[in-house]
Protein backbone atom coordinates (compact mmCIF):
# COMPACT_ATOMS: atom_id res chain seq x y z
CA UNK A 1 0.00 0.00 0.00
CA UNK A 2 2.72 2.43 1.00
CA UNK A 3 4.72 1.68 -2.12
CA UNK A 4 1.70 2.10 -4.25
CA UNK A 5 0.89 5.56 -2.94
CA UNK A 6 4.54 6.48 -3.19
CA UNK A 7 4.73 6.26 -6.95
CA UNK A 8 1.23 7.25 -7.87
CA UNK A 9 1.86 10.93 -7.29
CA UNK A 10 5.04 10.80 -9.36
CA UNK A 11 2.98 9.45 -12.20
CA UNK A 12 0.26 11.99 -11.69
CA UNK A 13 2.88 14.68 -11.46
CA UNK A 14 4.22 13.80 -14.86
CA UNK A 15 0.81 13.56 -16.40
CA UNK A 16 -0.23 16.82 -14.89
CA UNK A 17 2.98 18.61 -15.80
CA UNK A 18 2.53 17.50 -19.39
CA UNK A 19 -1.01 18.80 -19.20
CA UNK A 20 0.21 22.12 -17.80
CA UNK A 21 2.93 22.46 -20.40
CA UNK A 22 0.46 21.84 -23.16
CA UNK A 23 -1.98 24.30 -21.72
CA UNK A 24 0.73 26.92 -21.34
CA UNK A 25 1.85 26.29 -24.88
CA UNK A 26 -1.65 26.71 -26.23
CA UNK A 27 -2.46 29.78 -24.22
CA UNK A 28 0.91 31.20 -25.19
CA UNK A 29 0.28 30.55 -28.85
CA UNK A 30 -3.24 31.93 -28.64
CA UNK A 31 -2.07 35.01 -26.81
CA UNK A 32 0.75 35.67 -29.25
CA UNK A 33 -1.56 35.04 -32.18
CA UNK A 34 -4.11 37.45 -30.80
CA UNK A 35 -1.53 40.14 -30.08
CA UNK A 36 0.04 39.70 -33.51
CA UNK A 37 -3.36 39.89 -35.19
CA UNK A 38 -4.35 42.97 -33.26
CA UNK A 39 -1.07 44.80 -33.77
CA UNK A 40 -0.61 43.94 -37.42
CA UNK A 41 -4.28 44.58 -38.07
CA UNK A 42 -4.03 47.96 -36.45
CA UNK A 43 -0.92 48.84 -38.39
CA UNK A 44 -2.56 47.79 -41.64
CA UNK A 45 -5.69 49.80 -40.92
CA UNK A 46 -3.55 52.72 -39.89
CA UNK A 47 -1.47 52.66 -43.04
CA UNK A 48 -4.49 52.29 -45.31
CA UNK A 49 -6.20 55.26 -43.70
CA UNK A 50 -5.78 58.77 -45.03
CA UNK A 51 -4.90 60.20 -41.63
CA UNK A 52 -2.83 58.31 -39.08
CA UNK A 53 -4.05 57.44 -35.62
CA UNK A 54 -1.49 59.50 -33.73
CA UNK A 55 -1.81 62.52 -35.99
CA UNK A 56 -5.56 62.43 -35.80
CA UNK A 57 -5.90 61.96 -32.06
CA UNK A 58 -5.34 65.61 -31.12
CA UNK A 59 -8.00 66.67 -33.65
CA UNK A 60 -10.69 64.30 -32.46
CA UNK A 61 -12.66 67.09 -30.87
CA UNK A 62 -12.47 69.50 -33.82
CA UNK A 63 -15.63 68.32 -35.46
CA UNK A 64 -17.77 68.03 -32.35
CA UNK A 65 -16.62 71.47 -31.23
CA UNK A 66 -17.50 72.95 -34.62
CA UNK A 67 -20.96 71.44 -34.40
CA UNK A 68 -21.54 72.34 -30.77
CA UNK A 69 -20.08 75.81 -31.26
CA UNK A 70 -22.53 76.56 -34.02
CA UNK A 71 -25.41 74.98 -32.18
CA UNK A 72 -24.58 77.08 -29.14
CA UNK A 73 -24.43 80.28 -31.15
CA UNK A 74 -27.92 79.71 -32.47
CA UNK A 75 -29.29 77.87 -29.49
CA UNK A 76 -32.47 79.96 -29.61
CA UNK A 77 -33.40 78.24 -32.88
CA UNK A 78 -33.18 74.81 -31.31
CA UNK A 79 -36.80 74.40 -30.16
CA UNK A 80 -37.98 75.37 -33.63
CA UNK A 81 -35.78 72.73 -35.22
CA UNK A 82 -36.97 70.10 -32.78
CA UNK A 83 -40.53 70.72 -33.87
CA UNK A 84 -39.57 70.94 -37.52
CA UNK A 85 -37.96 67.51 -37.50
CA UNK A 86 -40.39 65.74 -35.23
CA UNK A 87 -42.42 64.32 -38.17
CA UNK A 88 -39.23 62.82 -39.61
CA UNK A 89 -38.48 61.25 -36.28
CA UNK A 90 -41.95 59.75 -36.16
CA UNK A 91 -41.41 58.36 -39.62
CA UNK A 92 -38.15 56.75 -38.53
CA UNK A 93 -39.79 55.22 -35.47
CA UNK A 94 -42.71 54.03 -37.59
CA UNK A 95 -40.38 52.36 -40.05
CA UNK A 96 -38.73 50.51 -37.20
CA UNK A 97 -41.96 49.59 -35.44
CA UNK A 98 -43.76 48.39 -38.55
CA UNK A 99 -40.72 46.44 -39.66
CA UNK A 100 -40.33 44.86 -36.24
CA UNK A 101 -44.02 43.93 -36.14
CA UNK A 102 -44.03 42.40 -39.60
CA UNK A 103 -40.65 40.76 -39.08
CA UNK A 104 -41.69 39.30 -35.74
CA UNK A 105 -44.95 37.87 -37.07
CA UNK A 106 -43.20 36.20 -39.99
CA UNK A 107 -40.31 35.31 -37.68
CA UNK A 108 -42.68 33.34 -35.46
CA UNK A 109 -44.04 31.43 -38.43
CA UNK A 110 -40.57 30.75 -39.80
CA UNK A 111 -39.33 29.66 -36.41
CA UNK A 112 -42.19 27.21 -35.94
CA UNK A 113 -41.55 25.83 -39.40
CA UNK A 114 -37.88 25.36 -38.63
CA UNK A 115 -37.93 23.89 -35.13
CA UNK A 116 -37.40 20.18 -34.91
CA UNK A 117 -40.36 18.49 -33.32
CA UNK A 118 -42.73 21.31 -34.19
CA UNK A 119 -42.28 21.73 -37.92
CA UNK A 120 -45.00 20.07 -39.98
CA UNK A 121 -42.51 19.20 -42.72
CA UNK A 122 -39.18 17.94 -41.44
CA UNK A 123 -37.53 18.04 -44.84
CA UNK A 124 -38.19 21.76 -45.11
CA UNK A 125 -36.30 22.63 -41.92
CA UNK A 126 -32.79 22.93 -43.42
CA UNK A 127 -34.18 24.89 -46.36
CA UNK A 128 -35.96 27.36 -44.11
CA UNK A 129 -32.90 27.66 -41.89
CA UNK A 130 -30.63 28.48 -44.83
CA UNK A 131 -33.23 30.93 -46.04
CA UNK A 132 -33.18 32.67 -42.66
CA UNK A 133 -29.37 32.66 -42.67
CA UNK A 134 -29.42 34.50 -45.96
CA UNK A 135 -32.03 36.96 -44.74
CA UNK A 136 -29.78 37.68 -41.80
CA UNK A 137 -26.57 37.86 -43.75
CA UNK A 138 -27.64 40.57 -46.19
CA UNK A 139 -27.10 43.97 -44.61
CA UNK A 140 -30.28 46.06 -44.60
CA UNK A 141 -28.56 48.80 -46.53
CA UNK A 142 -28.13 46.50 -49.53
CA UNK A 143 -31.78 45.57 -49.75
CA UNK A 144 -32.82 49.15 -49.11
CA UNK A 145 -30.64 50.57 -51.88
CA UNK A 146 -31.86 48.03 -54.39
CA UNK A 147 -35.47 48.69 -53.39
CA UNK A 148 -34.98 52.43 -53.60
CA UNK A 149 -34.01 51.88 -57.20
CA UNK A 150 -37.15 49.84 -57.82
CA UNK A 151 -39.70 51.60 -55.65
CA UNK A 152 -38.28 55.08 -55.37
CA UNK A 153 -37.19 56.76 -52.13
CA UNK A 154 -39.31 56.99 -49.02
CA UNK A 155 -40.01 54.85 -46.01
CA UNK A 156 -41.22 51.68 -47.72
CA UNK A 157 -37.87 50.34 -48.98
CA UNK A 158 -36.38 50.85 -45.55
CA UNK A 159 -39.32 49.14 -43.91
CA UNK A 160 -39.10 46.13 -46.20
CA UNK A 161 -35.34 45.89 -45.83
CA UNK A 162 -35.48 46.00 -42.05
CA UNK A 163 -38.44 43.64 -41.93
CA UNK A 164 -36.59 41.06 -44.01
CA UNK A 165 -33.55 41.23 -41.83
CA UNK A 166 -35.68 41.11 -38.68
CA UNK A 167 -37.47 38.05 -40.00
CA UNK A 168 -34.19 36.18 -40.34
CA UNK A 169 -32.73 37.35 -37.06
CA UNK A 170 -35.84 36.80 -34.97
CA UNK A 171 -36.68 33.56 -36.76
CA UNK A 172 -33.39 32.13 -35.58
CA UNK A 173 -33.69 33.39 -32.02
CA UNK A 174 -37.31 32.29 -31.79
CA UNK A 175 -36.52 28.82 -32.99
CA UNK A 176 -33.89 28.53 -30.25
CA UNK A 177 -36.57 29.51 -27.75
CA UNK A 178 -39.01 27.04 -29.28
CA UNK A 179 -36.50 24.27 -28.96
CA UNK A 180 -36.60 24.68 -25.21
CA UNK A 181 -40.37 24.59 -25.07
CA UNK A 182 -41.90 21.46 -23.60
CA UNK A 183 -43.46 19.17 -26.18
CA UNK A 184 -45.87 17.64 -23.69
CA UNK A 185 -48.69 20.12 -24.20
CA UNK A 186 -48.23 19.79 -27.94
CA UNK A 187 -48.56 16.04 -27.74
CA UNK A 188 -51.56 16.42 -25.49
CA UNK A 189 -53.24 18.63 -28.07
CA UNK A 190 -52.26 16.28 -30.85
CA UNK A 191 -53.98 13.44 -29.02
CA UNK A 192 -57.30 15.28 -29.13
CA UNK A 193 -56.97 15.68 -32.90
CA UNK A 194 -55.94 19.34 -32.97
CA UNK A 195 -54.60 20.77 -36.23
CA UNK A 196 -51.05 22.09 -36.57
CA UNK A 197 -52.10 25.71 -36.17
CA UNK A 198 -54.04 24.89 -33.02
CA UNK A 199 -51.18 22.90 -31.58
CA UNK A 200 -48.77 25.77 -32.15
CA UNK A 201 -51.09 28.53 -31.02
CA UNK A 202 -52.35 26.80 -27.91
CA UNK A 203 -49.44 24.51 -27.07
CA UNK A 204 -46.28 26.42 -27.97
CA UNK A 205 -47.00 30.13 -28.13
CA UNK A 206 -48.21 30.47 -24.52
CA UNK A 207 -44.98 28.85 -23.33
CA UNK A 208 -42.62 31.01 -25.34
CA UNK A 209 -44.51 34.31 -25.55
CA UNK A 210 -42.59 36.19 -22.84
CA UNK A 211 -39.27 35.31 -24.37
CA UNK A 212 -40.43 36.14 -27.88
CA UNK A 213 -41.75 39.48 -26.74
CA UNK A 214 -38.50 40.24 -25.00
CA UNK A 215 -36.45 39.46 -28.09
CA UNK A 216 -38.82 41.48 -30.26
CA UNK A 217 -38.36 44.48 -27.98
CA UNK A 218 -34.60 44.15 -28.20
CA UNK A 219 -34.96 44.05 -31.96
CA UNK A 220 -37.11 47.18 -31.96
CA UNK A 221 -34.25 48.94 -30.24
CA UNK A 222 -31.81 47.76 -32.90
CA UNK A 223 -34.22 48.56 -35.71
CA UNK A 224 -34.63 52.18 -34.69
CA UNK A 225 -30.92 52.64 -35.27
CA UNK A 226 -31.09 50.74 -38.52
CA UNK A 227 -33.98 52.85 -39.69
CA UNK A 228 -32.05 56.03 -38.92
CA UNK A 229 -29.05 54.72 -40.82
CA UNK A 230 -31.10 53.82 -43.85
CA UNK A 231 -32.40 57.36 -43.93
CA UNK A 232 -28.82 58.27 -44.54
CA UNK A 233 -28.81 56.53 -47.89
CA UNK A 234 -32.09 58.07 -48.97
CA UNK A 235 -34.77 55.99 -47.36
CA UNK A 236 -36.51 58.84 -45.61
CA UNK A 237 -36.98 59.60 -41.96
CA UNK A 238 -34.71 61.51 -39.68
CA UNK A 239 -31.53 59.95 -41.04
CA UNK A 240 -32.18 61.71 -44.33
CA UNK A 241 -32.44 65.10 -42.66
CA UNK A 242 -29.42 64.39 -40.55
CA UNK A 243 -27.39 63.57 -43.61
CA UNK A 244 -28.51 66.63 -45.54
CA UNK A 245 -27.66 69.01 -42.72
CA UNK A 246 -24.54 67.20 -41.60
CA UNK A 247 -23.00 67.04 -45.06
CA UNK A 248 -23.73 70.68 -45.70
CA UNK A 249 -21.29 71.32 -42.92
CA UNK A 250 -20.76 74.73 -41.45
CA UNK A 251 -23.92 76.76 -41.67
CA UNK A 252 -26.33 73.96 -40.86
CA UNK A 253 -24.55 72.34 -37.96
CA UNK A 254 -27.13 73.82 -35.60
CA UNK A 255 -29.86 71.89 -37.38
CA UNK A 256 -27.69 68.79 -37.43
CA UNK A 257 -27.19 69.10 -33.70
CA UNK A 258 -30.92 69.41 -33.11
CA UNK A 259 -31.67 66.35 -35.23
CA UNK A 260 -28.94 64.43 -33.54
CA UNK A 261 -30.33 65.36 -30.16
CA UNK A 262 -33.79 64.10 -31.16
CA UNK A 263 -32.40 60.85 -32.44
CA UNK A 264 -30.14 60.31 -29.46
CA UNK A 265 -32.86 60.95 -26.94
CA UNK A 266 -35.21 58.61 -28.79
CA UNK A 267 -32.66 55.83 -28.85
CA UNK A 268 -31.88 56.21 -25.16
CA UNK A 269 -35.54 56.35 -24.18
CA UNK A 270 -36.50 53.29 -26.21
CA UNK A 271 -33.42 51.51 -24.91
CA UNK A 272 -34.31 52.17 -21.29
CA UNK A 273 -38.00 51.33 -21.66
CA UNK A 274 -37.28 48.15 -23.51
CA UNK A 275 -34.63 46.99 -21.07
CA UNK A 276 -36.98 47.49 -18.13
CA UNK A 277 -39.79 45.72 -19.98
CA UNK A 278 -37.52 42.85 -20.98
CA UNK A 279 -36.34 42.42 -17.45
CA UNK A 280 -39.93 42.18 -16.29
CA UNK A 281 -40.84 39.72 -19.01
CA UNK A 282 -38.01 37.29 -18.51
CA UNK A 283 -37.44 37.56 -14.78
CA UNK A 284 -40.65 38.89 -13.29
CA UNK A 285 -42.91 36.35 -14.89
CA UNK A 286 -40.64 33.41 -14.34
CA UNK A 287 -40.76 34.02 -10.62
CA UNK A 288 -44.55 34.06 -10.36
Amino acid at each position, binding site marked *: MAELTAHIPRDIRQVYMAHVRQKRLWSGILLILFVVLMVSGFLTANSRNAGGFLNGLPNVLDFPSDVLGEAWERAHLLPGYLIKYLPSLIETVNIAAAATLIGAVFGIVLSLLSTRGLAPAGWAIPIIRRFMDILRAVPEIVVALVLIFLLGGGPVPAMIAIALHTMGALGKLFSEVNENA*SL*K*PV*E*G*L*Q*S*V*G*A*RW*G*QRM*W*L*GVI*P*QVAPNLLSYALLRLEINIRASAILGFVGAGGIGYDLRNTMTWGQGKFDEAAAIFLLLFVTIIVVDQISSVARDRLTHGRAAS
Partner: protein
Amino acid sequence: MLTLTSLTKSFGQNVAVDRATLNFDRPAMIGIIGRSGAGKSTLLRMLNRLADVTSGTITFEGHDITKLSGKAKRHWQSQCAMIFQQFNLVPRMDVVSNVLHGTLNRRSTLATLFNLYPTADIHRAIDILDRLGIADHAPKRAEALSGGQQQRVAIARALMQEPKIILADEPIASLDPMNAQVVMQSLRRIHEEDGRMVIANLHTLDTARRYCDRVIGMRDGKVVFDGTPEQLTTGMAREIYGAGEEFSEAATSTEIETLEQTAAPQRHEVKAAV
Protein backbone atom coordinates in the same frame (compact mmCIF):
# COMPACT_ATOMS: atom_id res chain seq x y z
CA MET B 1 -65.56 -3.24 -31.68
CA LEU B 2 -61.76 -2.75 -31.49
CA THR B 3 -59.47 -5.30 -33.04
CA LEU B 4 -55.68 -5.29 -33.27
CA THR B 5 -54.24 -7.75 -35.73
CA SER B 6 -50.59 -8.62 -35.58
CA LEU B 7 -49.82 -5.01 -34.66
CA THR B 8 -46.09 -4.31 -34.80
CA LYS B 9 -43.96 -1.26 -34.24
CA SER B 10 -40.23 -1.19 -34.61
CA PHE B 11 -37.74 1.57 -34.03
CA GLY B 12 -34.87 0.57 -36.27
CA GLN B 13 -33.63 -2.76 -34.93
CA ASN B 14 -35.67 -2.49 -31.78
CA VAL B 15 -39.13 -4.05 -31.93
CA ALA B 16 -41.21 -2.16 -29.37
CA VAL B 17 -44.49 -3.96 -30.04
CA ASP B 18 -44.31 -7.40 -31.57
CA ARG B 19 -47.31 -8.83 -33.44
CA ALA B 20 -49.87 -7.91 -30.83
CA THR B 21 -53.26 -9.42 -31.64
CA LEU B 22 -56.13 -8.44 -29.37
CA ASN B 23 -59.84 -8.20 -29.66
CA PHE B 24 -62.14 -6.05 -27.58
CA ASP B 25 -65.78 -6.75 -28.35
CA ARG B 26 -67.48 -4.52 -25.81
CA PRO B 27 -66.57 -1.45 -23.78
CA ALA B 28 -64.60 -2.67 -20.79
CA MET B 29 -62.02 -1.37 -18.39
CA ILE B 30 -58.75 -2.85 -19.49
CA GLY B 31 -55.40 -2.68 -17.77
CA ILE B 32 -52.12 -3.28 -19.54
CA ILE B 33 -49.23 -4.24 -17.32
CA GLY B 34 -45.61 -5.01 -17.96
CA ARG B 35 -42.26 -3.71 -16.91
CA SER B 36 -40.55 -0.63 -18.24
CA GLY B 37 -39.82 -0.90 -21.94
CA ALA B 38 -42.36 -3.66 -22.50
CA GLY B 39 -44.09 -1.61 -25.18
CA LYS B 40 -47.18 -0.44 -23.32
CA SER B 41 -46.85 3.22 -24.20
CA THR B 42 -46.03 2.41 -27.79
CA LEU B 43 -49.17 0.30 -28.09
CA LEU B 44 -51.40 3.08 -26.82
CA ARG B 45 -49.68 5.67 -28.98
CA MET B 46 -50.39 3.56 -32.03
CA LEU B 47 -54.03 3.25 -31.05
CA ASN B 48 -54.36 7.01 -30.80
CA ARG B 49 -52.27 7.31 -33.98
CA LEU B 50 -49.71 9.53 -32.27
CA ALA B 51 -47.27 6.95 -33.57
CA ASP B 52 -47.46 5.29 -36.94
CA VAL B 53 -47.88 1.56 -37.23
CA THR B 54 -45.05 -0.48 -38.73
CA SER B 55 -47.24 -3.41 -39.72
CA GLY B 56 -50.51 -5.05 -38.78
CA THR B 57 -53.91 -3.40 -38.55
CA ILE B 58 -56.20 -1.65 -36.11
CA THR B 59 -59.90 -1.73 -36.87
CA PHE B 60 -62.60 0.03 -34.92
CA GLU B 61 -66.25 -0.72 -35.55
CA GLY B 62 -65.34 -2.15 -38.90
CA HIS B 63 -63.26 0.81 -40.07
CA ASP B 64 -59.57 0.35 -40.66
CA ILE B 65 -57.83 3.16 -38.84
CA THR B 66 -54.29 1.94 -39.33
CA LYS B 67 -53.44 4.24 -42.22
CA LEU B 68 -55.72 7.20 -41.68
CA SER B 69 -54.15 10.57 -42.27
CA GLY B 70 -54.96 14.25 -42.24
CA LYS B 71 -58.53 15.07 -41.35
CA ALA B 72 -59.65 11.47 -40.95
CA LYS B 73 -56.80 10.76 -38.57
CA ARG B 74 -57.60 13.81 -36.47
CA HIS B 75 -61.23 12.77 -36.42
CA TRP B 76 -60.22 9.36 -35.09
CA GLN B 77 -58.04 11.00 -32.47
CA SER B 78 -60.98 13.06 -31.33
CA GLN B 79 -62.91 9.84 -30.70
CA CYS B 80 -60.08 8.19 -28.90
CA ALA B 81 -58.93 10.34 -26.02
CA MET B 82 -55.52 9.99 -24.45
CA ILE B 83 -54.35 10.66 -20.91
CA PHE B 84 -50.64 10.95 -20.23
CA GLN B 85 -48.39 10.19 -17.31
CA GLN B 86 -47.19 13.80 -17.28
CA PHE B 87 -50.73 15.13 -17.91
CA ASN B 88 -49.54 17.06 -21.01
CA LEU B 89 -51.70 20.06 -20.27
CA VAL B 90 -50.89 23.59 -21.38
CA PRO B 91 -49.51 24.79 -18.06
CA ARG B 92 -49.88 28.53 -18.63
CA MET B 93 -53.54 28.35 -19.60
CA ASP B 94 -56.47 28.09 -17.24
CA VAL B 95 -58.20 24.85 -16.40
CA VAL B 96 -61.38 25.49 -18.38
CA SER B 97 -59.39 26.33 -21.50
CA ASN B 98 -57.46 23.13 -21.11
CA VAL B 99 -60.67 21.16 -20.87
CA LEU B 100 -62.10 22.99 -23.89
CA HIS B 101 -59.10 21.83 -25.91
CA GLY B 102 -60.99 18.56 -26.06
CA THR B 103 -63.30 20.19 -28.59
CA LEU B 104 -60.56 21.49 -30.88
CA ASN B 105 -61.18 18.91 -33.53
CA ARG B 106 -64.80 19.95 -33.86
CA ARG B 107 -64.17 23.68 -34.06
CA SER B 108 -62.58 25.68 -36.85
CA THR B 109 -58.98 26.66 -36.32
CA LEU B 110 -59.75 30.34 -36.62
CA ALA B 111 -62.47 30.24 -34.00
CA THR B 112 -60.25 28.49 -31.52
CA LEU B 113 -57.41 30.92 -32.17
CA PHE B 114 -59.69 33.65 -30.89
CA ASN B 115 -61.05 31.63 -27.97
CA LEU B 116 -64.47 31.47 -29.57
CA TYR B 117 -65.88 28.44 -27.80
CA PRO B 118 -69.66 28.15 -27.66
CA THR B 119 -71.15 28.94 -24.27
CA ALA B 120 -72.69 25.49 -24.15
CA ASP B 121 -69.22 23.96 -24.36
CA ILE B 122 -67.96 26.17 -21.56
CA HIS B 123 -70.84 25.10 -19.41
CA ARG B 124 -70.29 21.47 -20.20
CA ALA B 125 -66.60 21.82 -19.36
CA ILE B 126 -67.50 23.12 -15.93
CA ASP B 127 -70.04 20.34 -15.45
CA ILE B 128 -67.36 17.78 -16.22
CA LEU B 129 -64.93 19.46 -13.83
CA ASP B 130 -67.65 19.44 -11.25
CA ARG B 131 -68.23 15.76 -11.79
CA LEU B 132 -64.52 15.17 -11.18
CA GLY B 133 -64.63 17.34 -8.09
CA ILE B 134 -62.32 20.10 -9.26
CA ALA B 135 -64.77 22.73 -10.51
CA ASP B 136 -63.50 25.16 -7.89
CA HIS B 137 -60.17 25.32 -9.65
CA ALA B 138 -61.76 26.21 -13.00
CA PRO B 139 -60.29 29.71 -13.32
CA LYS B 140 -56.80 28.78 -12.13
CA ARG B 141 -53.83 28.14 -14.37
CA ALA B 142 -53.19 24.45 -14.87
CA GLU B 143 -49.64 24.79 -13.55
CA ALA B 144 -50.99 26.01 -10.23
CA LEU B 145 -52.70 22.68 -9.55
CA SER B 146 -51.34 19.62 -7.80
CA GLY B 147 -50.46 16.55 -9.84
CA GLY B 148 -53.65 14.69 -8.99
CA GLN B 149 -55.76 17.71 -9.85
CA GLN B 150 -53.91 18.18 -13.13
CA GLN B 151 -54.54 14.56 -14.03
CA ARG B 152 -58.23 15.06 -13.37
CA VAL B 153 -58.15 18.08 -15.67
CA ALA B 154 -56.62 15.82 -18.28
CA ILE B 155 -59.44 13.34 -17.73
CA ALA B 156 -61.91 16.18 -18.06
CA ARG B 157 -60.32 17.14 -21.36
CA ALA B 158 -60.68 13.54 -22.47
CA LEU B 159 -64.35 13.47 -21.48
CA MET B 160 -64.89 16.74 -23.30
CA GLN B 161 -63.93 14.91 -26.46
CA GLU B 162 -66.92 12.59 -25.94
CA PRO B 163 -64.65 9.78 -26.94
CA LYS B 164 -65.57 6.19 -27.59
CA ILE B 165 -62.31 5.04 -26.10
CA ILE B 166 -60.17 6.55 -23.38
CA LEU B 167 -56.51 5.60 -23.42
CA ALA B 168 -54.52 6.28 -20.30
CA ASP B 169 -50.74 5.89 -20.31
CA GLU B 170 -49.68 5.29 -16.72
CA PRO B 171 -52.10 7.89 -15.46
CA ILE B 172 -51.04 7.50 -11.84
CA ALA B 173 -47.30 6.97 -12.15
CA SER B 174 -46.48 10.54 -11.22
CA LEU B 175 -48.99 10.73 -8.41
CA ASP B 176 -48.82 10.02 -4.73
CA PRO B 177 -50.97 7.10 -3.48
CA MET B 178 -53.79 9.35 -2.28
CA ASN B 179 -54.17 11.09 -5.62
CA ALA B 180 -53.63 7.86 -7.52
CA GLN B 181 -56.67 6.40 -5.86
CA VAL B 182 -58.86 9.39 -6.73
CA VAL B 183 -57.75 9.30 -10.37
CA MET B 184 -58.29 5.54 -10.78
CA GLN B 185 -61.68 5.81 -9.17
CA SER B 186 -62.62 8.58 -11.59
CA LEU B 187 -61.62 6.45 -14.54
CA ARG B 188 -63.57 3.52 -13.22
CA ARG B 189 -66.63 5.68 -12.66
CA ILE B 190 -66.44 7.02 -16.18
CA HIS B 191 -66.33 3.51 -17.47
CA GLU B 192 -69.25 2.40 -15.37
CA GLU B 193 -71.48 5.45 -15.67
CA ASP B 194 -70.84 6.42 -19.31
CA GLY B 195 -70.11 2.95 -20.59
CA ARG B 196 -66.93 4.12 -22.30
CA MET B 197 -64.08 1.79 -23.02
CA VAL B 198 -61.00 2.60 -20.94
CA ILE B 199 -57.57 1.15 -21.68
CA ALA B 200 -55.00 2.04 -19.06
CA ASN B 201 -51.32 1.21 -18.90
CA LEU B 202 -50.61 0.42 -15.33
CA HIS B 203 -47.50 0.14 -13.45
CA THR B 204 -48.59 -1.90 -10.56
CA LEU B 205 -50.32 -5.22 -10.35
CA ASP B 206 -52.69 -4.47 -7.54
CA THR B 207 -54.13 -1.40 -9.27
CA ALA B 208 -54.84 -3.48 -12.33
CA ARG B 209 -56.42 -6.17 -10.20
CA ARG B 210 -58.55 -3.78 -8.27
CA TYR B 211 -59.95 -1.62 -11.05
CA CYS B 212 -59.91 -3.61 -14.28
CA ASP B 213 -62.26 -6.10 -15.87
CA ARG B 214 -59.54 -7.50 -18.01
CA VAL B 215 -55.78 -7.41 -17.72
CA ILE B 216 -53.26 -7.70 -20.54
CA GLY B 217 -49.67 -8.46 -19.75
CA MET B 218 -46.85 -7.48 -22.08
CA ARG B 219 -43.26 -8.47 -22.07
CA ASP B 220 -40.64 -7.42 -24.61
CA GLY B 221 -43.32 -6.16 -26.96
CA LYS B 222 -45.33 -9.37 -26.93
CA VAL B 223 -48.72 -9.94 -25.35
CA VAL B 224 -47.99 -12.71 -22.86
CA PHE B 225 -51.13 -12.61 -20.80
CA ASP B 226 -54.74 -11.77 -21.52
CA GLY B 227 -57.40 -12.62 -18.99
CA THR B 228 -59.40 -11.57 -15.96
CA PRO B 229 -57.71 -10.25 -12.86
CA GLU B 230 -58.49 -13.50 -11.13
CA GLN B 231 -56.49 -15.45 -13.70
CA LEU B 232 -53.46 -13.33 -12.94
CA THR B 233 -51.55 -15.48 -10.48
CA THR B 234 -48.33 -14.53 -8.78
CA GLY B 235 -46.55 -17.02 -11.04
CA MET B 236 -48.01 -15.31 -14.08
CA ALA B 237 -47.00 -11.92 -12.72
CA ARG B 238 -43.47 -13.21 -12.22
CA GLU B 239 -43.38 -14.16 -15.84
CA ILE B 240 -44.71 -10.81 -17.03
CA TYR B 241 -42.26 -8.88 -14.92
CA GLY B 242 -39.45 -11.32 -15.60
CA ALA B 243 -38.78 -11.43 -11.89
CA GLY B 244 -37.36 -14.22 -9.80
CA GLU B 245 -38.42 -15.71 -6.50
CA GLU B 246 -37.87 -12.49 -4.60
CA PHE B 247 -40.82 -10.93 -6.36
CA SER B 248 -43.59 -9.93 -4.06
CA GLU B 249 -46.84 -8.28 -4.88
CA ALA B 250 -46.18 -5.43 -2.54
CA ALA B 251 -43.08 -4.48 -4.46
CA THR B 252 -45.19 -2.98 -7.22
CA SER B 253 -47.93 -1.65 -5.04
CA THR B 254 -48.89 1.95 -4.69
CA GLU B 255 -52.04 1.40 -2.70
CA ILE B 256 -52.23 3.43 0.40
CA GLU B 257 -53.10 0.59 2.74
CA THR B 258 -50.33 -1.63 1.43
CA LEU B 259 -47.85 1.15 1.78
CA GLU B 260 -48.66 1.83 5.33
CA GLN B 261 -48.44 -1.81 6.28
CA THR B 262 -44.96 -2.37 4.92
CA ALA B 263 -43.50 1.08 5.43
CA ALA B 264 -39.83 1.84 5.27
CA PRO B 265 -38.00 -1.35 4.30
CA GLN B 266 -39.98 -1.43 1.11
CA ARG B 267 -38.67 1.73 -0.44
CA HIS B 268 -35.59 0.19 -1.93
CA GLU B 269 -37.49 -2.57 -3.59
CA VAL B 270 -39.95 -0.16 -5.16
CA LYS B 271 -37.07 1.61 -6.80
CA ALA B 272 -35.60 -1.59 -8.05
CA ALA B 273 -38.87 -2.67 -9.53
CA VAL B 274 -39.72 0.60 -11.28
